C-alpha cells in the first residue's frame, strides 16, 4: 500500500509526527451550512483540506473523506445527491498525479470525536456512504474549471448510502 496524498493534518502515519508534533492544532471549525447547494459554488478545496486521505491500492485508488466538519451541508433532504456530488468532486480534484488505476473507490464517513490534539478518534467512526466508479466515466469539468451541476449519482456504478 502506498499513501498517495495527504491533505492537511490527519492523524495518519508520518503525519502524526510531522503535523501534530507542531503543537496542539486549532480545533477544526465545522463548516457552516450553505444557503443553497450548487455544485459549482461549493468551496470544495476548503472542505477537503485536512479531511481527505487518498491511497493507491492494487488495481484502484481509494478516497476517504471525514465529513464530520461538513455535516450540516450533507444531512439534508437531498443527502444522496449531495454525497454523490461530494464524492465526484473528490475523485476529480484529488486523483493522485502519477496514479495509474482507473477504478476508484470512495468512502465518506463521520468521525464523531477528536482528541485534544485534533486527531480523529477512529472508534467513533460512522460510515456514511460508499461509491465506486471508473475514472474514465467521470465527465470533465466545464471550460472554466467548474464542475457541472448534474445528477452525480448516476455516474457511479456502485452506491451505498448507510442509514
Amino acid at each position, binding site marked *: 500500500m502506498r499513501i498517495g496524498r495527504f491533505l492537511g493534518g490527519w492523524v*495518519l502515519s508520518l503525519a*502524526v*509526527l510531522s503535523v501534530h*508534533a507542531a*503543537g496542539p492544532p486549532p480545533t477544526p471549525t465545522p463548516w457552516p451550512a450553505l444557503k443553497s447547494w450548487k455544485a459549482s459554488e461549493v468551496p470544495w478545496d476548503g472542505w477537503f483540506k485536512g479531511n481527505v486521505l487518498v491511497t493507491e491500492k492494487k488495481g484502484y485508488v*481509494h478516497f*476517504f473523506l471525514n465529513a464530520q466538519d461538513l455535516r450540516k451541508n450533507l444531512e439534508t433532504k437531498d443527502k444522496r445527491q449531495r454525497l454523490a456530488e461530494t464524492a465526484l468532486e473528490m475523485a476529480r480534484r484529488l486523483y493522485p498525479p502519477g496514479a495509474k488505476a482507473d477504478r476508484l473507490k470512495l468512502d465518506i464517513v463521520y468521525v464523531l470525536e477528536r482528541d485534544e490534539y485534533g486527531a480523529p478518534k*477512529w472508534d*467513533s*467512526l460512522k460510515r456514511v456512504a460508499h461509491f465506486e466508479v471508473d475514472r474514465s466515466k467521470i465527465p470533465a469539468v466545464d471550460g472554466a474549471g467548474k464542475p457541472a451541476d448534474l445528477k452525480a449519482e448516476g455516474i457511479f456504478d456502485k452506491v451505498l448510502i448507510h442509514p
Partner: protein
Amino acid sequence: MRTMGWVVASILSLLLPASAGALGPMYSFRDLVAGEGTSGKKDGPFFRALFHSPLGVALDPGGRRLFIGDQDNHAIRMVDLAHDNFVSTLSGGKGKGFRDGPLASAAFNRPGGLVMLPDGNLVVADQDNGRLRLVDLRQGRVSTLAGDGTEGSKDGKAGNSQADRIWGLAYLEQEKALYFSQPTYGTLRKLDLASMETSTVLKGDVQLPRPGALCIGAGQLYVSDRSNGKVFRVLPAPSQEGVAPSVRLELVSEGRKALALAWSEDALYSLEADPNSPVARLSPPGQVPFLTTVGDVLQEPTRMGLFQDVLKGQPMALVPDPSSRKFFISHPSLNIITSFRDLRQEQNSKTHDLNSQGLMDFEYPLLKPPGVFRVLVVGDSHLYHNYHLDKFVDNRMSVLAKRMELELNMTAALEGASGRFEVMSLAAPSSEPLNLWPYYKVPAAVEKYDIDLVLHTQLNTNRHPRIYVPYFERPITSEGIPAYDMDPEHLLKPWEERAKEGLALELVEACRKKGLLEARPGEALPFGDFQKMVEDPDIREILLRMYSRPIQLLKAKLGSRRTKQGGRIGYGICLIALPQYDRSSRDRVFWREAQKGTGLPLLDLTDLMTVFRVSLFPLSCMDGEDHFNDQGHQFLGTAIARELIKKQWVPFPVGGR
C-alpha cells in the same frame, strides 16, 4: 519559576556523591576551554592556566590539541583537549625575541594569528618580529617562512619579503599557498609554499580597501573588509594572455564588522563587533543566539563580560571543529579561550517542531563527536510541552532532555568524569500509541545519530490511548503488531472482521467470556470500561502483552545492532508515575507490570515521585493538562540523569582521565 528550578537542582546536588576526581571541562553549548581569566603565564589545569592576550587559535587535524598564540607571553601554548584541556607551553614564553631552532629555545615577539597546515604543522604570524614562522611539530623546530622583520608589504623571495601587521591567515590547499591580509597596507597577499615566493593578490582594491579576516570554505577563500563591512568570496579571474593571473571578488555579505571568519560544514560564520550578537551565520544567513541555560538569549555581554573583546576592534580567532559543530573563540582582553556549539539554537522557541532529521530537538551533528555518549529520550507530549499558568513556555532549553543533558555534563565536570553527553528527544503526541510508534521510528533515529542509549519514558497517564485500540484500528503485521500506517479501508470493516486473529481475537474472546463485551455491532469497538478490563486478571494479561509486544520487538531490533564504535545500544524504560494520574491504587501496579512485561531494564521513578510530590509541588500544570512546568522538567531531568549515573546506564568513570 526558574529560580525554583535551580532550587530543585541544588536539593538533588546534595545527594550527589562527594567529588572524587578533579574538576573537568564542561560540555555544554558554551564552555570555557582554558584560562583562569587574569593575565599571566601559568601552565596547568585549564581553569588555573594563565594567558596574556591570547589571540590565534588552531586545532590540530585530529581535533585533540588546540594551539594558542599567546601574544604578550610571546609563547605558543597548547591545550590538550583529550586530557581535560591541560595547558602547556609549546614554545617561547621566556621573553620576547627572535630565535629559530628547537621548540624549547625558540623565541617569538607577540605571536598572534595561527593556522594549521594539513601536515599538522603550524604557521604563526609573529607580529612584532614582522615574520611568518613555521612550527614543525614532528621535528620539534621553529623556522622562519617569510618576512625580513621590517615593516611593509614588499613581495619577493620569502626571506626578503615583508610580513608584519597581519590580521588574517588562511591556507589554501589547492594552491599550496598561505594567504595573509595586512589591512594597514591594504593588501591581500600569499606565500607560495612550494616556491617560497610572496606575491600580492590585491592591493588598494576599491571593493576591498582594507582586507581583514580570512578563511577557507569549500576550497575557496573568503575575506572581510575592515572599513566597508563587506565580505567577499575570492575567485580566480578569467586569464588573459600576457597578464598575470588575477582574482575577482564576489560579494557574500555586507554591513558586517567581521573580526574573524570561519567555515564549518556548509556555512560561513563571522565573529562580529556586536556584543549582543557576536556570531552570525553569513551564508546561509542566520543568527547564532547565545542561549543561557534557561533559554534566554544572552544579552548585555558588556555587563556579563563575555564579549567585551569584540568592541575593541582587534583581531580575534574563530576556529571551527566541524565534528561537533563547535567553534573556539579567543578572548584577548579576558585572557581566556571559550567554545560554543551552533546547533541552530535560534529554533529554541519552536519547541514542537521537528529538526531536519525528525527529532524534536536542536540540529545535533549526525556524526557523534569523539568521547560523546548519546541518549535518545523517547516519549509523548510530556517531553516537549512546558506549561506555566496554562500557557505554553516555548523554550527548548527548559524541557526534560536538555535538563538531563545539562545535569549529566555538569555532574561529569564536577566529578572529573570523562563523560560527555548529548541528550536528544524523539516524541509524538499521545494520539499516537507510545508503545507502538517507537518500533517504527526509533531504529532510524538510532542509526542516524549513532545513539548509545534509548530511554523510553512512560507516564501512568490516564490520557494514554487504550492499549488495545491500535490492534483494531490498523492492519496487523506479520510480527503480530499494528502497522504504522493507518489503512482507511481496514477501519471501515466491521470490528468483528478486524479481530479474526492474534491478540485482538484473544481480547475479544476473553472479554466475551467475562461479560465485558458490549454488543455494538457496526462501526464502534465493542469494549466498555477500560478500568474494568484492566482489573480482570485474564484480560489484563492480554492487555499487557499488547503493550509489551512492540517494545520487545524493538528491543530485539536494537539488540542486533551496534554503535559505530561497536558498542551495544542500551534500551531501557523510565516509569514516571505521577500521583495525580492514578485513578485507582492499582494504576501504579498496572504500569509497573506493563514495564516489567517488556523485559527491559526499568528505571522506576515511582518512589522518588512519592517522596518529592509535596515538597516540589506543583511539578505539573493542571491547566496544561498535567504537562510539566519548568520546575517539573528541571526536577525530572535532574532526577533521571542522577538515576542513569547511579544505575550505570551511562558511562561515568570518575577521576579516570
